[in-house]
């Protein structure tokens, strides 16, 4: 017990000593500090005299230019309404002094008389008062605008609109309030009101580009694309570097297009992986001129006329130029076919409408199928077939006619050969190669009389020309018909 008590005592003594030491330290410190601070003060005084740095201060809060004191007192007298005491305010009625109120009313009447007497002064005073009132209203308007801006930042758009409306009441000729209100209405999705406000703002200030932009936005939402485009183009004319206007204009154009043409969707049953990755574009369909068909019909009629006139070469000749004039591209085939048909008395060929010349296939056939296809395509165009045949190298006849030549094809080939004026290398080669095709001999034996005649003429030509070579000899031997 005693040891604890002693310990506590010792502790306390220690603490006290410590506190004392702290205190003395502090006091010493304090003394030195006071000396320092006195010196500092002296320095401050001297520097204050020499330099005077004035900090840039913000304007006085709610600053309104007060009117001249004389006017103000007058104004106060005229504007102070005797605040009527409410009926429930019993305390005030207790204090109400009737005599005083009567005296006050008398004074007011006198003052009014005085005012009327001093009208000359009042003229100026009124003007000044009006100016002062205007200033007050302007300041009020600015204040409401600030309130509106505060609400806008807090995203309280209805309150912001109210504040801006109050601002407009105070100062109806400031376009900024209208434009700000329009922006709030955009967020509230009241596009009609927004457009109206923007229009008002623009009427007050033509060069207010923000108002044009907001009006364009509202119009886009209301699908008035042409008018929106007008607004945006006006902005771009004034400020070509305005990126917002440009992007908005592109958007307007796109939306307009969608509206006019309707959205384009891919086919429903096309699998997704096969659909186009690029956006779909509408392509307008152009109708190709169908005049050829109609022309062919008319020439058909003309052809019939020829038949009726029978084989009158003159008339046919006269008609041929007319046919050729009707056709846009007079082909040599017509001139070739008509005399032939006239001679052979085959009206069918005349009746057959002369078709448009089919171009010769550019690819040289390598298989029988290709040859057949092209040959049939060319049909009865002898000239073209001749050119086509000439293109084919004779060496490939074996592969082309690996299954043998058709009789019709063979007869046509014979015809072409007979039409050749000169016996050239190509002809010889082709004749040589053709006889190597399978069932050539059977074909020969089954030739018609006309074809046999053609063949004879060809062979005679050959003999007359050059019968010396081996090739020719073999040809003559193999093609011989008895």
């Amino acid at each position, binding site marked *: 017990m005693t040891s604890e008590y002693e310990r506590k005592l010792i502790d306390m003594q220690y603490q006290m000593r410590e506190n004392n030491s702290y*205190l003395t330290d502090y006091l010493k410190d304090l003394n030195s500090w006071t000396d320092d601070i006195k010196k500092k003060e002296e320095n401050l005084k001297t520097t204050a005299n020499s330099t005077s740095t004035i900090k840039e201060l913000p304007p006085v809060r709610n600053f309104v230019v007060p009117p001249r004191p004389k006017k103000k007192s007058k104004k106060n007298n005229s504007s102070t309404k005797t605040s009527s005491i409410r009926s429930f305010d019993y305390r005030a009625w207790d204090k109400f002094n009737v005599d005083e109120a009567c005296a006050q009313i008398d004074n007011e009447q006198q003052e009014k008389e005085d005012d009327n007497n001093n009208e000359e002064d009042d003229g100026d005073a009124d003007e000044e008062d009006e100016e002062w009132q205007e200033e007050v209203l302007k300041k009020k308007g600015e204040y409401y605008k600030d309130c509106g801006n505060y609400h806008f930042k807090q995203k309280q758009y209805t309150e912001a609109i109210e504040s801006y409306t109050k601002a407009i009441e105070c100062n109806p000729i400031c376009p900024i309030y209208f434009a700000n209100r329009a922006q709030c209405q955009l967020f509230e999705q009241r596009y009609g009101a927004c457009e109206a406000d923007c229009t008002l703002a623009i009427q007050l200030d033509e060069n207010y580009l923000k108002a044009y932009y907001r009006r364009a936005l509202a119009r886009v939402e209301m699908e008035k694309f042409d008018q929106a485009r007008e607004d945006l183009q006006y902005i771009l004319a004034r400020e070509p570097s305005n990126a917002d206007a440009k992007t908005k204009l592109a958007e307007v154009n796109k939306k307009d297009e969608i509206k006019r043409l309707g959205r384009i969707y891919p086919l429903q049953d096309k699998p997704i992986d096969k659909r186009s990755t690029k956006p779909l574009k509408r392509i307008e369909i152009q109708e190709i001129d169908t005049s050829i068909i109609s022309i062919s019909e008319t020439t058909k009629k003309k052809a019939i006329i020829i038949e009726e006139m029978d084989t009158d070469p003159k008339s046919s000749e006269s008609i041929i130029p007319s046919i050729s004039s009707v056709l846009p591209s007079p082909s040599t085939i017509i001139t070739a076919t008509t005399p032939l048909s006239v001679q052979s008395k085959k009206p069918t060929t005349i009746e057959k409408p002369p078709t448009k010349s089919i171009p010769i296939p550019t690819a040289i056939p390598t298989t029988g199928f290709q040859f057949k296809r092209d040959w049939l395509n060319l049909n009865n165009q002898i000239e073209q077939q001749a050119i086509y045949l000439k293109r084919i190298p004779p060496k490939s006849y074996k592969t082309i006619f690996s299954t043998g030549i058709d009789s019709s094809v063979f007869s046509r080939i014979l015809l072409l050969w007979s039409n050749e004026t000169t016996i050239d290398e190509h002809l010889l080669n082709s004749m040589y190669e053709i006889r190597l095709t399978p069932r050539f001999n059977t074909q020969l034996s089954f030739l018609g009389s006309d074809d046999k005649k053609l063949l004879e003429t060809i062979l005679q030509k050959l003999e007359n020309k050059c019968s010396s070579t081996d090739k020719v000899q073999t040809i003559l031997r193999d093609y011989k018909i008895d």
Partner: protein
Amino acid sequence: MDKPQIILHSQKSVNYTVFDVKWIPTSAKFISLGNHARGTGALDIFEITHGDITVVSQNEKPSAFKCGTFGASPTRERRHLATGNFDGYIQVWDLEKLDKPIYSVKGHKEIINAIDGVGGLGVGEGAPEIATASRDGRVHIWDTRQADLPVASMEPAESETKRDCWSVCFGNAFNSSERIVGAGYDNGDVKLFDLRSMSLRWETNIKNGVCCLEFDRKDIEMNKLVATTLESKIHVFDMKTQHSEKGFASVVEKAHDSTVWLGRHLPQNRDVFMTCGGSGSYYLWKYNYPEQRFKTQTDKTVVGVAGSLALLQNISLSSQPASAFDWSLDKLGLACTSAFDQTVRVLITTKLNTV
């Protein structure tokens, strides 16, 4: 015994009632404002020198002073004292030329109970402004560049009864446009006015008349608010989180066994403050923050959480109420105080740097 010690350094008795004492910035001097028995105002300048208080100058003015502040002094070099007196006049004095005020206006119909200044002494941003609270229930904001009219004013509505406004303070002045004025009334109302949006930010009633209201710092976003009231209560509000219905969270402490006249935060540590009671006692407190300063409730709203107060030290220096207390901005722990026993005292508080 690592607690800070409050020690009386020196004291001086005067022949007038002292209502306010304030340190002169960047000096070892302080001024006292008071009321002579003959009804005139007293403005004395004292200086501490080597363990004693010496009188530098004594001035007498026609009207008794109630309160004063250096808060709206434009620079530290030119020290301007703004005072409020018993007749409702607000005056700004240049300490170099005390014969005439540089700004004077009859701002209130009745006695100005409290005054506060913000934006001066090179602290914070924005224009220096003065706030005054008066018995006529009004709070006016003044700017020395505008004469005659207050820049802003908070008044009760015409038909409402006027309650005495006992205290006023500035806060939340973290940029040039933001300002909040707090006002405490004799019926326990505490109102916060936002000067930027010119609206009432928050109001509450703490049941007992508010003798003193102070933010922990004027030039930061509002953090804590101390309200000292009658019936020995101290309220500390956490001003970081405002709930739409519950307002701000607070902690209440009972101390002094009498009216708590003042609560003053230490300029060098905003969590330490001194309260002065009607029994002449001084209590040094430290505010401890809770682990989480806010919590989200079931309806997704955030509500603040108040911390706790710890009493560091207390001392009783007189039998009369302490009318004024001011920490020195330049020296940690140095304070001047006055009481209704017509004395001014200088106090030292040790070990504040380890608190």
